[in-house]
């Protein structure tokens, strides 16, 4: 009887995904404790957000994909409206208009768009599965382009590129012809000088800083310089938990959030890093398997896009902290401190589980 209830409750939860995600979360909590100079309240705060995120994931996992698909259009429209709202009424924090006060809380509409965009694209391609025309790709491009432009204007080039990428993944998986892909890539390459000229000063600085962090050791370069020192000095086995000098003597900036990987890396070394990379790869592999086995195009595209979104965040974050990518505000999935990102990530997991868990139902 109890067993039946337990099965009912957990039946849709994917044991592989959940165990990997929870392991990464556990590493994140341990690192957060160290990064916050052993502040337990901080860790409790993050754990309570994890609880909420898990609940949302459970709810989504138990929702059939068909129902999810119905939410695609309203969700996209809401996200788009909020983005427009941001441009009109948004709060300016640190010189960028990214936040919107919706009464109960201050939200970042771009975060919602991270899910809404792949969802609507998957829904759109699924709807036009049997008669896919170039026109459809054009409409898809429009669905990507509008939010992209709105977020670029905030300005938040990093997030815009990530969202653009999640849309592009859907197009790629949906079968956009190689000719078009190569053509677009070439066009993008050719337009780089133009893009460069339109970038904000701080954005250029970030890129220049990447090329030579030592040019401005106390300004933009300071972040990258200190985080690479943290990683490099960690060595093979790390300095040990709570014993990272870069972390505990305040040399690392943003060490709870975007730069938490440097803390992890300093204290757990190369071995810790490889463990984390393997965990991520395992999680991605499971995501790809779900995508490959999904029974509908909607499921395939959504699962694929979400998995690639996870990958992108992890790659961009670790790349930037270790100094091979420019500094963009991307958290490390399941590790960085912060509730919004955590919820988005678990929503993604919930969607994957929904797609996988309702496979047989759809087939019958």
């Amino acid at each position: 009887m109890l067993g039946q209830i337990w099965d009912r409750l957990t039946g849709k939860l994917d044991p592989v995904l959940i165990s990997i995600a929870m392991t990464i979360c556990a590493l994140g909590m341990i690192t957060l404790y160290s990064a916050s100079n052993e502040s337990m309240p901080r860790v409790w705060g993050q754990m309570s957000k994890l609880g909420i995120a898990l609940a949302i994931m459970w709810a989504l996992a138990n929702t059939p994909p068909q129902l999810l698909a119905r939410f695609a259009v309203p969700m996209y429209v809401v996200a788009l409206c909020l983005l427009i709202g941001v441009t009109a009424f948004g709060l300016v924090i640190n010189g960028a208009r990214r936040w919107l006060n919706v009464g109960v809380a201050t939200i970042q509409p771009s975060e919602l768009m991270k899910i809404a965009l792949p969802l609507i694209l998957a829904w759109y391609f699924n709807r036009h599965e049997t008669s896919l025309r170039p026109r459809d790709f054009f409409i898809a491009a429009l669905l990507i382009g509008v939010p992209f432009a709105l977020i670029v204007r905030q300005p938040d080039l990093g997030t815009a590129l990530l969202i653009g990428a999640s849309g592009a993944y859907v197009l790629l998986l949906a079968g956009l012809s190689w000719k078009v892909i190569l053509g677009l890539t070439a066009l993008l390459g050719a337009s780089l000088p133009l893009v460069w000229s339109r970038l904000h000063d701080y954005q250029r600085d970030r890129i220049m800083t990447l090329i030579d962090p030592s040019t401005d050791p106390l300004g933009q370069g300071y972040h990258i310089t200190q985080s690479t020192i943290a990683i490099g000095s960690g060595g093979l086995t790390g300095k040990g938990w709570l014993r990272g000098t870069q972390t505990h003597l305040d040399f690392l900036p943003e060490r709870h959030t975007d730069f938490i990987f440097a803390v992890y890396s300093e204290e757990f070394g190369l071995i810790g890093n490889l463990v984390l990379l393997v965990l991520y790869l395992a999680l991605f592999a499971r995501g790809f398997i779900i995508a490959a086995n999904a029974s509908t195009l909607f499921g395939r595209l959504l699962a694929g896009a979400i998995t690639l979104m996870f990958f992108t965040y992890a790659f961009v974050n670790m790349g930037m902290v270790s100094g091979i990518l420019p500094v963009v505000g991307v958290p490390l999935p399941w590790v960085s401190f912060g509730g919004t990102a955590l919820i988005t990530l678990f929503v993604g997991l919930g969607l994957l589980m929904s797609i996988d868990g309702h496979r047989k139902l759809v087939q019958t």
Partner: protein
Amino acid sequence: MASELRNPQYELKRFQSRLLLVGVLVFAAFGVLAGRFIWLQVYKHQHFQTLAESNRIANIPVPPSRGIITDRHGVVLANDYAAYTLELIPSKIQNLDETIDKLAEYVEITPKDRRRFRKLMEEAKNFETLPLRTRLSEEEVAKVAANRFRFPGVEIRSRAFRQYPMGESASHVLGYIARVSQKDQERLAEANLMGAYRGTDYIGKAGVELSYETELHGITGIDEVEVDAGGRAVRVLSRKPPVAGNNLQLSIDIKLQAIAEKAFEDKRGALVAIEPSTGDVLAFVSKPGYDPNLFVEGIDPESWKALNESPDKPLLNRPLRGAYPPGSTFKPFLALAALEMGLRTPSSAISDPGYFYLPGSSHRFNDDKPGGHGIVDMYKSIVVSCDTYYYQLAADMDIDEKADFLRPFGFGRKTGIDVEGELIGVLPTREWKRKYYGAAKYREEHRKWYAGDSVSAGIGQGYNTYTPLQIAHAMAVLSNNGVVFKPHLVKAIQDSRSGERRLTEPKPTDTIALKAEYVNVIKNAMAGVNKEGTSAMVFKGAPYTNGGKTGTAQVFSLKGQKYEASKIDERLRDHALFVAFAPLDKPTIAIAVLVENGGFGSQSAAPIARKVLDFHMLGKVGPDGDVANTSATAKVAAR
């Protein structure tokens, strides 16, 4: 593609192949990351390890405490005391003004403090921390410490400050210390001492503080500490304690010094007292003086202006760097020269009509006594200070031979005293005049030596100029029968670690071959000066034997008019001089006094000498001494 038939099987295949491709790319991307990690954490690990360590570990120099300076009897003249300072690290503060404004909410920061801080910033670019406020109270320390987290780059430190308890007294002997300037840094860099001075903010700028800098400074210690990103020390890893600087015991008797300074009242001038048998400088007065405490924390612009632009020149070290004609105090030396050179005997006398003409010249050299002194022998020439006697002597004596005789006494060359900046003065010779007028704008007639030049030089005027130190030194040499001791201000150096004392060895540096008989003639005549001569009134009733000589040095040529002090602008009045020694047999003190624009030597200079000799000889203030309160009690400069 537009009318392409959709084949679900083909579509699925294509999706899966694309997924596979993407999967490979994902794997490759993570491979790149792994590669980057291996590069950073294995290949370049050592490099980053070093960087992290240099982030973390700072070698903080611990400045040594500076040596203490005492007088010959152990009275403290300069020492260190600890005080809290509020310091800023400009390189770690983004907006200095804002930080200072915020700090002002916790501690009082006056506009003067701000100005001084700005000045420090301009002067000392390479320094890590600069004091904004010094001498914080305990309460202020507590307030700032409690709000430390709000002020990155702000520190409270305990630092040693120099203080000069005697204030102005002996200021020109001690000199002062002040913040290391750009110039000092260059000098230190040249001497390869930058490392030794890390953490040291102050350096000797004048007096013995400057000349004995290497003894006083000590050896800098090093604390290896762990610091956080704000530059704050978290804990000490290892420690190499500093070694305090060596202590100086001066030859100065600060009580004697104080009596001498007091005796000057508000007159300008100089006094040097030397122990002839050792070269110990017992008193070294330059009036007016200044308060060296003003310089320690960086002098504020107003005080500096007041000192630097005062017409009284309080910063001028008069005994060392003031050049004055010796006037009649030169006569005993010239008389000795006459005896030694065989130009006169003690008893050969002249008849003084009150003036002197060079043969074939119509220029009249006046004696200061109209009508003259009558029959004048050598004894009388000194006692009454007869100019005519010396005009004649000068006409008979070759200027170069005279210079050769006088030079060993220290005239016209450095005495070698142990402070920097001594002037050479002018002991005129033919060669000197030729060089002095060597510039193209002068003609041969300017450069040539005339008999008239010798005559004015013959009474200590003309081209003669010497420092009060040189005159005192010469007096010491004469009273010591020609045995020369280099004058020195530092009697002993005490090693801070072993406590061992290194004495400045009183070794004669030269002995002038003088006939004792001749020296006694001069000494006897100088005793006569104080008994029945120009300063007899001043030395009346002195219970010890002594000798002296008055002098008056012209500042301004009256061109034949009669000198009337009251009618002349004070600054153009003659300088008053007096030299003396006591007792006659084995003198323990030789002294030179100069009062700028003081008129006759007997009027203003001799009474000062009397007070100093009384105290030195009797150990107490003399009978008519109004200087009873000159006990050198410490006026601790507690502001």
